[in-house]
């Protein structure tokens, strides 16, 4: 186990959940920026990922004050579902999964890349990274922080 960042286990757990909250909030605000400010219409898969990401912000925050490590019980299912959706979306966007078997052939296609940063960083990839980070932090809290 990594050296605790704070003096005791509860502090360690708090830090992990707090970091997960920072990732979820950053991801949620970024999604809102792309959708509401830049005016990109989210595709179907993006909506499902939003459904998993947005509630993590209040749920994780509620678990911080006072700290309740059982917050992972409620946050992990959301994080896991979002992570699976993000992986699927990444597969569609990178052509590993053909678009025709996906539920979004009408309207905004999920395979269309709206944004490519630094030549490789796409939105589905960012989503995978964000959900992976949250999942990792919550699993650490769940299994590595002593009661």
């Amino acid at each position: 186990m990594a050296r605790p960042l704070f003096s005791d286990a509860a502090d360690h757990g708090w830090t992990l959940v707090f970091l997960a909250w920072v990732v979820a909030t950053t991801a949620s605000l970024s999604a809102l920026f792309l959708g509401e400010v830049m005016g990109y219409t989210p595709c179907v898969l993006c909506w499902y990922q939003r459904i998993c990401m947005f509630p993590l912000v209040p749920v994780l925050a509620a678990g911080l004050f006072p700290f309740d490590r059982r917050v992972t019980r409620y946050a992990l299912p959301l994080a896991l579902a979002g992570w699976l959706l993000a992986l699927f979306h990444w597969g569609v966007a990178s052509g590993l999964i053909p678009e025709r078997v996906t539920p979004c052939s009408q309207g905004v296609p999920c395979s269309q890349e709206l944004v490519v940063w630094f030549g490789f960083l796409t939105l589905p990839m960012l989503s995978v990274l964000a959900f992976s980070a949250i999942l990792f932090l919550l699993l650490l809290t769940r299994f590595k922080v002593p009661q």
Partner: protein
Amino acid sequence: MKKTLFIAAAAVLLLAFLGATLYYTQERGDEAQRHASQNQAALERPHAPTLGPTRAKVRIVEFLDPACETCRRFYPFVKDMLIAHPEEIHLTLRYAPFHQGSDQVVALLMAAQKQGRHWEALEALLNTQNDWVAHHVVQPDRVWPHLEGLGLDLAQLRRDAADPEIARLIAQDLADAQTLNVTKTPEFFVDGQPLPSFGYEQLKEMVDAALARAYPR
């Protein structure tokens, strides 16, 4: 300590979001203004229906989709402005039929224009929009009943609407909409400049400012 850290993080993230939003809308507004200034020729075309005297100095160009709900809601508002300033405002109407099947309705309106009944037909259709648009898709068969009783020769209207010339004019409107970056309806240009952001208030402010400029008391 923890509370302070949490509040600080929340504040930083929120401020970053607000800052980015402000910066982005500002940049986009400037860009839209430059873009409109460079493409003034695409705003007014001879075929487009107009309201108000040609000599009027305040010129509004509206891109409208007859199947668009927001366009229907804006229509009385724009008309009230024209009624309040009958000598000062000139309105040019351009069509941006973005809804599925809406181009067929625009063809009918342009055909009605040939019979000098454009505005009557437009108002009749906007007033009954709920009846002939279902889930954002135009139901062409349900448009016709609302064109009766307006003094239109409906047989002639049907022939004119199928005229390739009208299809060409619709294509011209759509091409101009694209040139001017009109992607949503209604879109307004006041004296050649787009609205800084969308809304009744923004339109009213822009028109009032243009009126004050053109007709100082």
